[in-house]
């Protein structure tokens, strides 16, 4: 009996001991890591300070660190395969330079390339900056360009490059099976190459889709990797050799990405020591801006909820302004099950978009009908947006003979709270004029599946932001495999084709004006709002600021005020 009496105590004791052991081993770690960490950082600091030009100077007192808030976690640092993920693109822009960069006024700026020129809109001559070099000091040459293109266009390599307009690629934009050279690429010398397109294209298309989008691989690091090993090569998990103002320091998915200054940069070396891109929920953004844990939000995936507008405006340590109009949230109609343009127009008249802009967005958005944001040079400003007119909507419905009992499946993606709230208002608007709406909310993967299988009548989401107008219209092309709205109009197809190949800007304006006019009348899609996103930046950050386009153009000039 006595012996057994001890056992409960023994168990409790054991539990306590385990706990103690856990604590004390933690305690040891504490000693270890806090002991090691400063030493490590100190070592890093001295290493950083031991950079050639600063060798003589005593180490600066404090590291200059800026933290950028982002809501979605970057998926990958792979510079030739960003998976279409905006968060990944954000961090990649810190580590990589493209041939050209772009600013918010749609101007192209030289980066790795000194010039991109063409005489016939088909053969593009690119002259590289002869000073350009990788962060390990190796020169950047046309050999790297060739290696990158041959790797990324290899059918075995997954890449986000969309270059099927380049001569020598197939419809998928890959090298045809068995082909090991890109016929459209001609290397002239170490710093000059020519790229030929299948047909003449507008230089802006070339610049946007090639010169600003393509990042490069270091041939001297990856040249011995076979194509089928490239996707999973460890380099892409830890791309230490890149060519950009900053270089890889640490990537903790769902937590943060840490980049440090590239002391070998071929342009003026960055003034900041480090940048963190920190993943946090949108609701924490304002709080952390306030506490100084985060200095900037980022666009388009570090959006400050518009509901916090007043609060962030009131912060004493933060400057706030609004971006230009961004890619609109669009309602897409399944034109097979809603074939009558009158019904779609009735929907347009039923929507109180002004209310959404004024109340939900507190005026920080604008109403447009088409897909092209109003700051795009090819935006047709002669179109008058559909007004909120429920009576007209009802009249059009009666005229069209629409069966009001037939429910419309309205697919709404979850995740973007403001868009969900806007959709709730839209549903109310539509119900008010007599539509029967079957609201279905899904995660994006499920929604896309439903859309692809035509299990919907209308849905709402945002597309990407493009500079090149043709990118907004390929959705409406009859032959396009991704024309999920099943819209088809021969005249529209013709205009899309003309627009993509016309290089005279005045003629393009005429083409795109007509195209937008037709789409405005036939209404296969209608935009709901084009948000002017909040750009918040701590007052002690110099030069840097969240931007829709080219946020990191001058990131090497970013600095912190003393």
């Amino acid at each position, binding site marked *: 009996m006595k012996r*057994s*009496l001890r*056992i*409960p*105590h023994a*168990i409790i004791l054991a539990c306590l001991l385990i*706990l103690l052991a856990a604590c004390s081993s*933690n*305690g040891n770690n*504490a000693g270890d*890591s*806090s002991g090691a*960490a*400063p030493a490590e950082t100190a070592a890093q600091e001295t290493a950083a300070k031991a950079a050639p030009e600063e060798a003589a100077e005593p180490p600066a007192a404090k*590291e200059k660190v800026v*933290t950028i808030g982002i809501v979605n976690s970057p*998926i*990958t640092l*792979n510079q030739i395969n960003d*998976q*279409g993920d905006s968060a990944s693109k954000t961090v990649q822009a810190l580590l990589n330079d493209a041939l050209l960069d772009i600013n918010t006024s749609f101007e192209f700026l030289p980066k790795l390339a000194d010039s991109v020129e063409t005489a016939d809109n088909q053969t593009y001559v690119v002259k590289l900056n002869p000073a350009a070099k990788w962060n390990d000091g190796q020169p950047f040459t046309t050999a790297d360009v060739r290696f990158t293109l041959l790797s990324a266009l290899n059918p*075995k390599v*997954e890449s986000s490059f969309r270059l*099927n307009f380049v001569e020598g690629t197939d*419809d*998928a*934009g890959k090298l045809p099976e068995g082909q090991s050279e890109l016929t459209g690429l001609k290397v002239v010398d170490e710093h000059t190459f020519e790229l030929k397109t299948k047909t003449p294209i507008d230089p802006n298309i070339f610049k946007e889709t090639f010169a600003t989008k393509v990042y490069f691989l270091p041939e001297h690091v990856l040249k011995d990797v076979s194509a089928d090993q490239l*996707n*999973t090569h460890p380099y*892409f*998990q830890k791309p230490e050799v890149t060519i950009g103002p900053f270089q890889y320091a640490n990537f*903790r*998915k*769902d*937590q*943060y990405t*840490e980049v440090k200054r590239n002391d070998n940069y071929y342009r003026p070396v960055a003034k900041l020591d*480090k940048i*963190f891109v920190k993943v*946090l*929920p949108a609701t*924490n953004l304002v*709080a*952390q801006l306030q*506490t100084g*844990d985060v200095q900037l939000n980022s666009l388009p995936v570090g959006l400050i909820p518009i509901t916090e507008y007043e609060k962030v405006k009131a912060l004493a340590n933060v400057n706030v302004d609004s971006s230009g109009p961004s890619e609109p949230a669009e309602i897409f109609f399944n034109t097979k099950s809603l074939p009558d343009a009158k019904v779609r127009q009735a929907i347009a008249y039923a929507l109180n978009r002004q209310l959404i802009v004024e109340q939900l967005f507190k005026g920080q958005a604008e109403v447009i009908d088409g897909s092209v944001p109003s700051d795009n040079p090819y935006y047709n400003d002669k179109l008058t947006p559909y007004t909120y007119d429920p009576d007209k909507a009802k009249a059009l419905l009666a005229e069209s003979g629409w069966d009001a009992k037939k429910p419309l499946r309205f697919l709404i993606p979850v995740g973007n709270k403001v868009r969900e709230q806007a959709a709730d208002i839209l549903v109310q608007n539509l119900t008010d004029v007599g539509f029967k709406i079957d609201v279905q909310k899904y995660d*994006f*993967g*499920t*929604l*896309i*599946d*439903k859309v*692809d299988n035509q299990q919907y009548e209308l849905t709402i989401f945002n*597309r990407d932001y493009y500079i090149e107008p043709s990118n907004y219209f*390929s959705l409406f*092309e009859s032959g396009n495999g*991704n*024309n*999920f709205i099943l819209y088809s109009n021969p005249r529209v197809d013709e205009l899309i084709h003309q627009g993509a190949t016309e290089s005279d800007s005045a003629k393009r304006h005429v083409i795109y004006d007509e195209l937008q006019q037709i789409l405005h009348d036939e209404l296969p899609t209608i935009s709901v709002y084009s948000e002017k996103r909040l750009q918040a930046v701590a007052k002690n950050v110099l030069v840097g600021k969240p931007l829709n386009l080219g946020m990191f153009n001058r990131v090497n000039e970013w600095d912190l005020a003393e």
Partner: protein
Amino acid sequence: MVSFVARRLLVSMPVLLGITVINFFIIKLAPGNPVEMFINPNTPPELIEAKKEMLGLNSPFFVQYWQWLLQLLQGELGYSFSSYAPVAGLIQERIGPTLLLAFSALIAGLLVALPIGIFSAVRHNTKWDYFLTGLSFVGTSLPSFFLALGLLYLFALKLRLLPTGGMQTLNGDGGVLDTLLHLILPVSVLAVVVIGKKIRYVRASMLDVLQQDYLRTARAKGVREFAVTHKHALRNALLPIIAVFGMEIPALLGGSIIIEQIFQWPGIGQLTMQSILSRDYPTLMALNLVAAIVVLTTNLLVDVLYALADPRIKYR
């Protein structure tokens, strides 16, 4: 005992296999696929088709499963569809934080629930008992996400005592004190749920035992009251308690998905959510496998603990 454990492990194998088949099936049943996550009309359909082919998504269900299994038998968990990172590495990186969170919550829960439950049972039908039972009722009923947001608002935003999320301060010293500070809020939330449920179990189990004859005998022969409750009664009451605490481990791992999201805790939960949303099949399968192994192991562990706590139980 050794042969019992060996036999149980052997039986676990077909169970594990069955679990993976069902998981694979359910994952495939979910609409959508990893390739067409974004509609971009500027992506040539041929490219989408090529990627599907490359990832083996066009093969019949059983072929896909068989390939996955073959790979697993060679000790390979494959590569994530979205980042091409090795899945084993992804999980290795995340399992530590999750276990830290879950076990801290379990131990904290145990340390609070056990004494309170005993106290409540000994003083049953007193005001103290009602108060504590009421409290445990509140703990069980409170949705954990709500509690999490409430605590965040109070301690992180208003009082600024604790960090809002994450596991370590960015660019900090990475020390344990820093991690502990980050641990307080998520552990508290998870522990409250554990405590709420377990107080009632401990109390009920103790009450059951307290009415046994042998306790009266013990008292009659002059054993002190403390010894009666803490040695004689507790030992016997421990049995069902071990079982429910064992069962709590899988529940904690599941429950931490939400808590990890709210507190940005870099654990398995966040990885799971991301993988579900991007239909990252290899990562999901590996996560399911890990979860299944954890559940089966804890079940086994509970059985073994039973034997240690109760000599009447003999495993043959």
